[in-house]
């Protein structure tokens, strides 16, 4: 019977399956260079870390996250955060460094679990608004371009933190004066090929791949004519060590403890960066396909995956905006896409390792530049510049990435956004016409002084007042006490001009769908209806 059922369902399933597998193949091909580049040039870890993140990270999140367009895997910002956090602690690519990186990832995973267990913490993630996220994304994009300058020119990657723009300028001058010209040629060919291919609509999603192929071909041409010993081009090392799984253990011992404590802020940053992106990307992409997935499901998938990944030699995972956009635009509509991309990538790495090893590093750096440039999109920035407050929050978050660090940017942006929304709430619109003082907004401890100043001025001039708060939607206890005290002075009458008929209608509508709209409020008096004294 079951075989029969499958056989009858096959004609329906097959096209869907084939479509999603094709998208999965594209996704795998696009992810591979990103994975290698992120782990080597950003995180300072061997390439198999990125590859395993693109295999196991993607697979775990695809299994745990019910969203249909979700795609996890290695992430630029998280990789950069690992590099930035660990560079003062140990030299990159070393044994200690790898141990600390695994510890850092595990700590981040555990912190993410906290965000799942403590509900309000998880809810806080929703309070990061779009200008902050876009400011972060633009700042990181610019940072990626600067960061890959040295790799682009075949120069040694400088070993300490490269945040300040001034040092980026120094790197730029170094590229001009002492860069390896062969490396620059390879990088430019990759960059320009990407750029040109992107303009051809049918090949748009293959641009990065074709660019890398062109860069590699030119590098092979140089190897044949000039010789690798003369060009001194660095290539991706052999991936022959990459197998099915690569077990690993985070570093936890007595001597390392002081360093582990010193990277704790980095772990918090890493956890937050992952969750922000996951929550924000899920919010944005789910709205795009007209669906909804609880962000807690995303947090759960990320937290569990990131607790497992450090035992599999992998970078941490979180949502990837650019790859989710790719899946969406190619019409992937099932979790099968991500899962299949992970498995296809595993097969590629197992059987095509020799080809991958030929890719020159300058081409990888050029890919990172393209990714960085893609993150800065005028379409995303423009809406924020229309409103002064949004513009300030956006610019603060953007500049903080460049002048402080990622965590500083999140803090500065959040504080500003929070301050603005609080400021808004604390300034209700108050109008006096005749002896009617109308308050639109909140009556609470923050806004009371504003209301009081107008109120007392009006009382002095008019003598007796009618306080109209029919358009108040929130009154806190302090507000109620103040209103009661004002009432006992008998200089003021209260009015709530919402018509009783309307209110009854409102009540009826409310009781009609108690299940959905006010399930939690049942039994509690609604503040909006208590506003008559």
């Amino acid at each position, binding site marked *: 019977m079951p075989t029969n059922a499958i056989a009858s369902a096959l004609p329906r399933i097959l096209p869907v399956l084939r479509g999603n597998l094709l998208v999965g193949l594209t996704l795998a091909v696009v992810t591979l260079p990103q994975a290698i580049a992120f782990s080597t040039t950003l995180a300072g870890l061997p390439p198999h870390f990125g590859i395993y993140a693109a295999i196991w990270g993607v697979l775990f999140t695809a299994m745990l996250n019910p969203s249909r367009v979700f795609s996890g895997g290695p992430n630029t910002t998280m990789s950069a955060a690992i590099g930035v956090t660990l560079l003062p602690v140990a030299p990159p690519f070393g044994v200690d460094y790898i141990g600390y990186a695994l510890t850092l990832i595990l700590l981040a995973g555990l912190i993410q679990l906290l965000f799942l267990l403590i509900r309000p913490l998880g809810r806080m993630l929703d309070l990061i608004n779009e200008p902050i996220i876009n400011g972060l994304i633009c700042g990181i994009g610019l940072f990626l371009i600067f960061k890959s300058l*040295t790799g682009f020119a075949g*120069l040694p990657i*400088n070993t300490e933190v490269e945040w300040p723009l001034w040092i980026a300028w120094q790197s730029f001058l*170094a590229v*001009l*004066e002492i860069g390896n010209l062969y490396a*620059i040629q390879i990088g430019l060919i990759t960059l*320009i090929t990407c*750029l040109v291919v992107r303009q051809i609509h049918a090949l748009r999603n293959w641009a990065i791949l074709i660019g890398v192929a062109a860069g590699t071909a030119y590098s092979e041409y140089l190897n044949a004519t000039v010789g690798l010993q003369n060009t001194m081009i660095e290539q991706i090392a052999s991936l022959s060590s990459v197998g099915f799984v690569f077990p690993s253990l985070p570093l936890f011992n007595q001597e390392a403890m002081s360093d582990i404590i010193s990277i704790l802020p980095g772990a918090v940053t890493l956890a937050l960066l992952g969750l922000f992106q996951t929550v924000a990307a899920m919010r944005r992409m789910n709205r795009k396909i007209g669906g909804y997935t609880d962000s807690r499901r995303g947090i759960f998938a990320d937290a569990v995956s990131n607790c497992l990944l450090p035992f599999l030699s992998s970078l941490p995972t979180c949502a990837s905006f650019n790859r989710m956009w790719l899946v969406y635009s190619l019409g992937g509509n099932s979790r099968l896409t991500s899962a299949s991309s992970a498995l296809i990538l595993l097969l590629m790495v197992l059987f095509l390792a020799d080809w991958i090893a030929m890719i020159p590093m300058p081409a990888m750096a050029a890919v990172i530049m393209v990714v960085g440039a893609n993150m800065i999109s005028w379409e995303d920035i423009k809406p924020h510049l229309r409103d002064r407050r949004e513009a300030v929050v956006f610019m603060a978050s953007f500049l903080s990435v460049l002048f402080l660090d990622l965590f500083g940017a999140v803090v500065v942006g959040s504080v500003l956004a929070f301050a603005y929304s609080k400021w808004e709430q604390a300034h209700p619109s108050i109008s006096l016409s005749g002896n009617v003082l109308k308050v639109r907004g909140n009556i609470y401890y923050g806004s009371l002084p504003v209301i009081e100043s107008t109120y007392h001025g009006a009382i002095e001039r008019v003598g007796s007042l009618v306080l109209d708060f029919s358009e108040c939607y929130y009154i806190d206890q302090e507000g109620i006490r103040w209103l009661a005290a004002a009432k006992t002075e008998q200089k003021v009458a209260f009015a709530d001009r919402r018509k009783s008929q309307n209110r009854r209608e409102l009540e009826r509508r409310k009781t009609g769908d108690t299940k959905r709209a006010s399930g939690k409020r049942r039994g509690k008096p609604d503040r909006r209806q208590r506003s008559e004294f």
Partner: protein
Amino acid sequence: MAALPARLLKVALIVSILGGLYLLAVKKHAEREALRQAAVELTPACKAKLQDYALRPGEQYRSPYLLKTAGSSIELRGYSEEDVRAIQRGCNIFDDLQGHLAKSGPRERWHADRFVRGTQTTCVHCHQGVGDKQDAAGNRLVGSNSMGTSWVMADMYDRFTGLLLPHDWRQMQCYINSSNGFKPNSADDLLRDVTAYSRFLAAALDLKIGNRYPEPGMDEIPASATLRRGDDYVRGAHVYRQRCASCHGPQGLGTVVQGRVLYPAVAGPESFSLDSRMNFARVNTVMPGFICRNMPPGEEGSLDNQQCRDIAYYLSTLPRPAGDKQGPLVAAWQQLMMTVMPPLTRYAGSLGNNDTAHVSH
């Protein structure tokens, strides 16, 4: 349809910018290459030093220093003309980091001024004797920061950071902390030439990799080397005014006459940063050692251990730039202090109830 030419235009613009940058890079590379090939005009100190060590292109090299001190010398492989130029440039950089003595200015020093904040710092301020300080008899002095020993002892584990520290990374630390600047790329000629010079010194002095020499580490003067009265910056300030202020200035801002640095700053914006090992508050043995061994010039050894520690302690209380990893708040605070404190101190001195009045200009 109208969007297509616009996009093409955009692509063409980006491609031409990239192409322009490539051509610029080719031009800059050619300039550098020309400078590498050009004959080097040595500073007076370098001329003397390299003449002493008989540096010239040839098949083999025999060190006159060894011949003089040990009576015999070993034949080493000689230097090509290219090597000699690199060593000469390295020595020039060492003696005159910012190109004050060069005809075409900082260009001849690979634009080292880009990596240093301020205009006064140069290597010989701390690495005296152009990185190879000797007494009249030709004995290398302990605590002289000799660059030859620094080269042979590179790639050892660094005592303070615990890192396996290559020579170029160590030089970067100098740029970042001691000259309060930025690190050059480790492929930069700036680092390579100084490495070449240090390496030449090691050959000329017959220093061997694997040995530990006492010269580079400044002689440590820990608290245990004193009578344990405790370090005191007030006492330090007093000694400083008596013994140091006549050259380094009442506030440690150095003496500069007509753009020439006669005595370097030990505090203020032209000085080493809070992250430097010279900062007593960070590493409390290096600066006392340096003072005891090298200061005041001509009267080395006249200060006792406690006095050296006190002076170093006092210097660490003067305002100086923040380290580059200490963040914007510390940087802003130090900047404020460096701006506000000198006039305030001068004013306090002018009141007359403070002994700075006796030495202030």
